[in-house]
């Protein structure tokens, strides 16, 4: 019996530790590195943001969650570069339940081909036995849509979002879900979560709440495609509060030519 018990040899130490295990497979990365994926990401149009996003842009085949305090903080301008590029590649962009009426001229100014956009209202009528996310899930699952932008109902349950996230695996393109800021306190199934906040005129503050990679402490400040003229932007920066004319007949012209 004793003969059977032998001391096991020490495990042979590996010759040297792998210097770059992340070179083995695109799905491997170190904790201090940004995550990568086999899918090519879609550039956001903002170099500072591209640097901080895993893969260097908006990810494909997963949901990207954007949290906003209210519509109209610059979210469309943030996403316009990616969505316009999708349209120029000949693919369809679908918008689900936009929170207000969209202005065709403003979208055309941002470079959109307005007539190629498809807008789906899922909450206009209550369909028995179905939910408003059915249409979004079908569109993600079909895999034929180029990009999806969806405004989710408030206080959405986590499993509903997880279901959408599973459906997004079939979706070859970026998919954005826009939610209220209070959702930041609850966990999410989406691998990317950003909080957006206006920070002055034409400046958007982006905090990356969740990403594949180390947490980012500092908030990014992105200069959006400007709405204001240079002079008006300077005025906003200086914080000068202009008093409007008291009576309509004596309007002060705030046009740049006058101020200069």
């Amino acid at each position: 019996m004793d003969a059977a018990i032998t001391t096991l040899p020490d495990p042979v130490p590996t010759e040297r530790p792998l210097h770059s295990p992340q070179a083995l497979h695109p799905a491997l990365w170190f904790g201090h590195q940004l995550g990568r994926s086999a899918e090519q990401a879609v550039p956001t149009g903002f170099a500072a943001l591209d640097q901080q996003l895993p893969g260097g842009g908006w990810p494909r085949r997963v949901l990207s969650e954007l949290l906003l305090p209210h519509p109209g903080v610059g979210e469309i301008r943030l996403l316009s570069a990616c969505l316009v590029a999708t349209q120029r590649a000949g693919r369809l962009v679908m918008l689900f339940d936009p929170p207000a009426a969209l202005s065709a001229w403003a979208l055309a100014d941002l470079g959109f081909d307005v007539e190629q956009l498809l807008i789906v209202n899922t909450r206009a009528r209550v369909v028995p036995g179905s939910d408003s996310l059915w249409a979004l899930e079908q569109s993600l699952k079909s895999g034929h849509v180029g990009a999806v932008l969806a405004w989710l109902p408030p206080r959405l349950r986590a499993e509903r979002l997880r279901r959408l996230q599973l459906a997004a695996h079939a979706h070859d393109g970026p998919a954005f879900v826009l939610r209220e800021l209070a959702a930041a306190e609850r966990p999410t199934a989406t691998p990317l979560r950003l909080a957006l906040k206006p920070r002055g005129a034409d400046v958007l503050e982006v905090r990356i709440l969740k990403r594949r990679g180390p947490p980012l402490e500092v908030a990014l400040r992105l200069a959006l495609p400007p709405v204001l003229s240079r002079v008006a932007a300077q005025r906003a920066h200086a914080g000068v509060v202009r008093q409007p004319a008291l009576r309509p007949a004596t309007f002060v012209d705030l046009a740049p030519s006058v101020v200069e």
Partner: protein
Amino acid sequence: MLWIALHLPLLSLESFAATVAGGADPRAAAAAPLALMDAQRIVSANAAAQALGIKAGLKRATALALVPQLVLGRADRTRDEQAFEPVAHAALAFTPSVSIQPGESAETAPNTVLLEVEASLRYFGGLPRLLQGLLSALQPLNHRIHCVSAPTPHGAALLARVHRRLACADLDATARALEAAPVWLLGPGQEHWDALQGMGLRTLGDLRSVPRAGLARRFGESLLNELDRALGLEPDPRVAIVLPPVFESRLELFARADTTEQVLHGASVLLARLVLWLAARQAFVRHFTLVMQHEARWRRSHDAPRSTALEIALAEPSRDSAHLLVLLRERLARLQLPAPTIDLCLRADDISQRTVPNQDLFPTSRSEREGLVQLIERLQARLGPEQVQRLHPVDDHRPECGSRIEATNGEIPLRSGLARPSPVPRPALRLKRLKPGIAPSSAKRAAVVASPTRPRRPTPRPVWLLPQPEPLPEHHSRPLLGGEPLQLLSGPERIEAGWWDTALAERDYFIAQAADGALVWIYRARLPLSAVEGEQGWFMQGRFG
């Protein structure tokens, strides 16, 4: 000549089963015990009923005592013919010469279809692949099918009644197979069955071995003629059937369908028939109608309609049965039946002849387009066609009139990636400067256009427009939003339009910054003395998204 005989031994039972609504699950329908009876005796029973002990010859009371939930029906010649027709249509997709073997007796509906396929063999890649294609085309009808090929039509039809699968390559093989077949296969043989059995003639081989003259004297010429035709000794001309130019198929339901799900079960049977008819016509359906006849006695009110017609129009003609069924299910789910349905009728109103699209191995832009068409049709079927919308710019200075929302007409708003037009030009006159003397010089204007950091247009518009301009409170003539003063950054831009209709707008617009830094678009009504109350002061109309 090579003939294929498709024989449906359980046609009456299966056509009865199709009318029994088994709910949404077809497997549940198959599990329900069904039986057909004639003169108070069971004639045939399905597998579920046989497993419970029901067999042919049982009395009705005995069968019901054995299986109380047994659903009993009667064979119906019209119903069988309606169920048999799509089998012949399916065959027409493979060869133009299809004929129907008459029924075994005058009362029974025909249940054997004959296809002459010699000319089609090469196109379909040989007999085994042709048979495979034929049987998979018939799969949705849920019939049990005997399939026999032989050089003579009558030989194939006779052998199909006793063999499930058989292929006779030449006349000798057919003769050998027929010699082993029982003698009751021959139509006139049935009435002489007892006499033939008494003479010890059980198979067709026995019949051939006795002298012809004696047989002809005892049983008539027709018995031997039929055998000769089966063996190929006598000519056997057949009349090919012609596909009906319009499709209309009826299904009388066995039980009242109270819910749309039960209707769907019957409608799926009709849809399978439609798809086979379309395949035989090499066509695709663009518009079809499902008419539901209601039972008059059970109507909720007297003015309720006697029938409901459900019209389904497709953006892209299709004969994909799964897609058509999804559309029908979504439309039926939205429908409220005024009364129980007893009868269904499916009609193809508009078909289009097209070439069959090629199958793609890898996703292409065309396959993506087709997928999108189907997706949009599915969304429209559930949400309503008006909920899937497109935006159109309108040449109007008033922002609330600058966009028009239209329900998409099903056409995919996709252009090829390269041929993308430049953004739609704005109307030329958008800006009215208050002081025309100090208009920016043309050089400055050029700089505005050239600089990439500048907005492309001098008068930007907000992406989000509020449905109604929101009145803003005023404090020391400064507009407030959320209790905080707004900082005016740019403006005014005067918009004065709409004198031609009732919505006259005379406003001075400003871009303002809210306390949290977001930009909003506000205006002041320019006519403070206008009589209309509530149209004065500051309003917020949009947000820069």
